């Protein structure tokens, strides 16, 4: 419809204006900030708002400045939107990526009470007081006030609000896939490379973040490929790819992570664009793809120019303006100023002109020539060479600019300032290749001094960068790279293909080398004058960057954290290079010498729901239940997590409190009988010729001579001499042992044993099998335990002579085959009854029935803890923390002096083990017998000493003991063994001080008289 002179050197065909990619016959109604608007199918929220002349769409992070739509893609820093209502609400979505659908509900963010009148904007007036590092400088002192400052700061800072209802009702899925070649980015070069590779028959996945393939070409009207407009070329190639069985096309799918060995993560927004979601589809899908070869065709991001007022609504990237005009049929302004340091923005001038806008071009370059400039001049557009927009003004949208001539280096204003009215500024500071994925995979970058950008160089991964993300901005060059990469990648996967002809591209001939002009002068001293933004999302200005440099933040990593440049949700896609260049300038250094910050995944924000997928709620982590679990639940047990196990904690009856229930259970275990579900104890079956020798090396004590049917307590150390686990192990046969471990340590102990067998002692013949879940275990404890076993139908003699303490017998209880261990964690007469797991519940109910006449009481893990603490028995992981030796625990008796070696033996002889300030296990009796000292409380010798006090150590176990009739505690105290009889103090948070005497740890029946009932 608009005739335009073709570039010189191109064939006769005249580039034609393309048809917009929206369907004007399909209106779509949506709501923004409570007002209804109409767009069309194919619109993004951004294009639909612009079409409705809505430019003000948000407030900025720090100064609450009015912000509009700057870009047309995922690099958008300003137009962040809260989408949806209630539990479906999601903050910080880029309006430029939201496809509108009927009934879409969107709100602006970061404004109180409304977008047009915002209280926070007062920060903008107070800007002199909010320099870089403001929070660090202001709220450092006094430190005690930080908690209060933080509350206010956290409230004032930030962008969108998450949904009030945190239970996301949407469903997310995960998909794993393998392919030969993953192509990241479905623009012109990505499509070409995918086609080239796919022709070989290799398996290709092509993913693109947009709703349709084509990339930036979708927004260009003046480019012909082959003999047809670019759009036609795109649809042809997409149709060809879609018809190939070895190709998977993933639109609306962002490749957001590139990890080792070509492992990539993708986020597919499967149904976000639909007004209602079909039941069979998730909202989003996380793809985890392993690719043999990766072709990165991410494209490039246009850079803003850094001039005063460059953040006003109506100031847009020049390329984005073209996209809105050509792809969405929206001209974002009628009086446009194009300001640029390169040729490319001239194409925007032409498109604006053809769309009916009045256009003025301010080119920072004093002497730029070429066919594009001629075409613009021929169209009657005013070109001001060697001129810059030095400031833009407006209220909620740009209304006026100051244009002035500048010197060649664009460091000074060199003439009179001219004022122009406008409603749109299209700015272009050149292109930055999107090197994100390449960099995530730890690929190196090199600075291109002509094109003024970082381009990919060496990488460790089998991958190719092609097109704009490789710095090849010229389409013809990009397509050649695509053909080359497609052929090579296919061949690397073992598929041969002949190179396709690179299609002929007809477009204006242009230079891709912009002028280096990073900060446009405004005639004011540094730090004065209106703000020129570098990072729009985090409100970082050019003077913030310079100030940080002056204050000594010379490393780019420090600059980033101090000013927060590039730390927004856009990760500085539009701002990083400008910030670097301004820092380099302030330091008098070259840009490549300053370097870049690290690129990390995700490329764009990714929904945490998609990452979690179905692994939420009950599926988050497996829960392990014992075979007696139903009984515990039916009898009102309260449960606690122990590792992945759910263990009965206590069994409250008739409205008992926890303390009352535990007291009753603990009492019963010592006066009548208690029954504990001990099925969760780790159990390892050990067999083989060298089983005894292996245990001898694994445990600190001697094992070779343990009799068959006898049990022994063992302590396991790491090779550094520190206690790692304990348990009772029983000799079932000459070459057969049954080991028990702590509940939480079971898996780790098996790992440990396997490691030593495989890596250090492969000559030992030992076989290990985890049998934790094969045995159900009920521990019967208390004076009546023997009577109950009799009544339950035990088929062997229980007399201590026949069945002594620390032995095991195999027999039957009420017909159930059982291994019964006479071992005790309570100090009472105690039997650990092991039956096949499937008999667990039967065993339990039979014991409960038989025990009814003998006062049997089920007890949980809390009572178990109290009972063992009354005896001074340790729990590994409670008394110990990986820095405790047997000596620290008064357990030298279990450490062999005669064995030539065991794990940890040499370390126990290290001189540091003899230090007398090692923390050692002691018992504590609080001066007030009814007070239970809190676990974790720190002990001091003198409560009146000045702060900070000298800490002795901490309380590790502390309970009320109903059998002792008072509180008891254990603690790890420095030099504790030598402090017996002394008093220590525990200063509490509320200012009170508890007092306790240091005693032995055996609080109840210290002589062990009760072990035989």
């Amino acid at each position, binding site marked *: 419809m608009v005739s335009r002179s073709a570039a010189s050197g191109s064939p006769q065909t005249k580039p034609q204006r393309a048809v917009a990619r929206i369907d004007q016959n399909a209106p779509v109604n949506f709501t923004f900030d409570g007002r209804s608007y109409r767009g069309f199918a194919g619109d993004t929220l951004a294009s639909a708002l612009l079409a409705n002349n809505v430019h003000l769409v948000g407030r900025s992070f720090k100064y609450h400045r009015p912000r509009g739509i700057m870009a047309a893609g995922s690099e958008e820093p300003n137009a962040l939107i809260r989408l949806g209502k209630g539990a479906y609400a999601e903050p910080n979505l880029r309006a430029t990526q939201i496809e509108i659908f009927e009934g879409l509900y969107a709100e602006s963010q970061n404004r109180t009470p409304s977008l047009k009148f915002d209280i926070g904007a007062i920060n903008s007036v107070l800007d002199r007081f909010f320099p870089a590092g403001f929070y660090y400088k202001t709220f450092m002192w006094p430190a005690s006030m930080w908690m209060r400052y933080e509350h206010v700061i956290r409230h004032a800072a930030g962008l969108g609000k998450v949904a009030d209802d945190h239970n996301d009702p949407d469903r997310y899925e995960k998909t794993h896939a393998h392919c030969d070649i993953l192509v990241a980015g479905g623009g012109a070069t990505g499509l070409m490379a995918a086609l080239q590779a796919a022709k070989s028959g290799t398996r290709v996945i092509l993913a693109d973040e947009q709703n349709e393939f084509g990339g930036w070409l979708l927004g260009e009207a003046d480019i012909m490929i082959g003999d047809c407009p670019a759009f036609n070329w795109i649809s042809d190639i997409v149709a060809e790819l879609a018809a190939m069985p070895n190709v998977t096309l993933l639109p609306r799918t962002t490749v957001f992570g590139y990890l080792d060995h070509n492992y990539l993560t993708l986020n597919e927004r499967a149904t976000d664009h639909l007004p209602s979601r079909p039941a069979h589809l998730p909202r989003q899908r996380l793809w985890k793809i392993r690719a043999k070869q990766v072709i990165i065709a991410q494209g490039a991001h246009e850079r803003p120019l850094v001039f005063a007022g460059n953040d006003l609504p109506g100031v847009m990237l020049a390329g984005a303006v073209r996209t809105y005009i050509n792809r969405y049929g929206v001209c974002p302004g009628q009086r446009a100023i194009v300001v640029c340091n390169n040729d490319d923005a001239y194409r925007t001038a032409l498109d604006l002109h053809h769309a009916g806008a009045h256009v003025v071009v301010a080119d920072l370059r004093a002497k730029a020539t070429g066919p594009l400039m001629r075409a613009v001049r021929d169209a009657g557009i005013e070109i001001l060479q060697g001129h810059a927009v030095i400031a833009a003004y407006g209220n909620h949208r740009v209304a006026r600019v100051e244009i002035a001539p500048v010197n060649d280096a664009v460091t000074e204003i060199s003439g009179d300032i001219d004022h122009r009215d406008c409603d749109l500024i299209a700015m272009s500071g050149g292109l930055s290749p999107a090197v994100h994925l390449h960099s995530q995979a730890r690929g190196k970058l090199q600075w291109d001094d002509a094109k003024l950008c970082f381009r990919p160089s060496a990488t460790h991964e089998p991958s190719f960068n092609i097109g704009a993300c490789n710095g090849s901005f010229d389409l013809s060059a990009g397509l050649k790279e695509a053909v080359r990469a497609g052929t090579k990648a296919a061949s690397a996967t073992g598929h041969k293909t002949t190179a396709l002809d690179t299609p002929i591209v007809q477009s204006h001939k242009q230079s891709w080398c912009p002028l280096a002009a990073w900060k446009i002068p405004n005639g004011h001293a540094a730090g004065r004058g209106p703000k020129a933004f570098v990072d729009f999302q985090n409100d970082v200005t050019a003077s913030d960057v310079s100030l940080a440099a002056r204050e000594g933040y010379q490393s780019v990593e420090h600059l980033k954290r101090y000013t927060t440049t590039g730390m927004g949700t856009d990760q500085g896609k539009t701002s990083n290079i400008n910030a670097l260049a301004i820092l380099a300038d302030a330091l008098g250094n070259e840009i490549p010498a300053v370097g870049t910050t690290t690129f990390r995944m995700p490329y764009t924000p990714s929904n945490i729901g998609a990452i979690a997928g179905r692994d939420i709620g009950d599926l988050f982590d497996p829960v392990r239940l014992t075979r007696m679990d139903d009984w515990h639940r039916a009898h009102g047990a309260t449960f606690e997590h122990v590792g992945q196990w759910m263990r009965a904690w206590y069994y409250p009856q008739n409205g008992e409190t926890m303390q009352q229930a535990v007291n009753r259970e603990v009492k019963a275990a010592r006066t009548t009988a208690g029954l504990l579900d001990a099925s969760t104890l780790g159990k390892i079956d050990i067999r083989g010729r060298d089983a005894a020798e292996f245990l001898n090396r694994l445990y600190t004590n001697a094992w070779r001579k343990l009799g068959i049917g006898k049990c022994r307590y063992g302590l396991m150390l790491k090779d550094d001499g520190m206690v790692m686990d304990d348990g009772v192990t029983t000799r079932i046969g000459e070459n057969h042992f049954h080991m028990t471990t702590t509940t939480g340590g079971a898996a780790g102990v098996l*790992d440990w044993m396997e490691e030593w067998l495989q890596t250090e002692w492969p000559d030992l013949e030992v076989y290990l099998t985890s049998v934790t879940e094969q045995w159900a275990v009920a521990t019967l404890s208390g004076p009546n335990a023997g009577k109950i076993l009799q009544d339950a139908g035990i088929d062997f003699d229980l007399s201590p002579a026949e069945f002594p303490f620390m032995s095991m017998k195999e027999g039957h209880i009420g017909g159930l085959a059982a291994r019964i261990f006479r071992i005790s964690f309570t100090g009472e007469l105690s039997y650990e009854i092991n039956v096949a797991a499937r008999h667990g519940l039967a065993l339990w109910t039979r014991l409960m029935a038989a025990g009814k006449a003998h006062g049997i009481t089920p007890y949980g893990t809390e009572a178990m803890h109290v009972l063992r603490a009354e005896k001074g028995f340790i729990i590994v992981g409670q008394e110990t923390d990986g820095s405790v030796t047997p000596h620290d625990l008064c357990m030298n008796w279990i450490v062999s002096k005669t064995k030539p070696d065991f794990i940890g033996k040499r370390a126990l002889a290290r001189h540091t083990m003899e230090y007398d300030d090692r923390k050692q296990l002691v018992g504590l009796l609080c001066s007030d017998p009814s007070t239970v000292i809190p676990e974790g409380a720190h002990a001091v010798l003198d409560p009146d000493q000045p702060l900070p006090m000298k800490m002795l150590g901490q309380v590790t176990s502390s309970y009320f003991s109903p059998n002792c009739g008072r509180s008891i505690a254990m603690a790890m105290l420095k030099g504790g063994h030598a402090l017996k009889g002394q008093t220590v103090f525990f200063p509490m948070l509320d200012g009170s001080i508890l007092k306790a005497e240091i005693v032995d740890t055996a609080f109840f029946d210290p002589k062990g008289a009760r072990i035989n009932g």
Partner: protein
Amino acid sequence: MLIITCPFCGPRDEVEFACGGEAHIARPLADHKISDADFADYLFMRDNPKGLFLERWRHSAGCRRWFNVARDTVSNEIVEIYPMGSLPVKTAAKTTYKTSWRRDTAAEKAATPSRSKAGGSK
């Protein structure tokens, strides 16, 4: 995420494996004859090189077998995978083994003769 080729099961994702840190640290016998400082070489000192590193891995969510891996810590390229108790055969990995400071330590010399001949395995 790395792909590691388990010598028993074939190539699998890294999530199935556990890394056991530096390989070829021979364990001195507890005969008390080496000094605490020499013993510390075995107990505490671990390399963290930029470049080729010989380390132990275990197919913990698979066959549970241990094996050795020569991995470049910069590129994450896996140069060689070889059994426990043996030495690498690829030139670069062999050089890494031979030039390790550990070869000259008293701790390694105090290890069992059979182990140190096998290059030590723990």
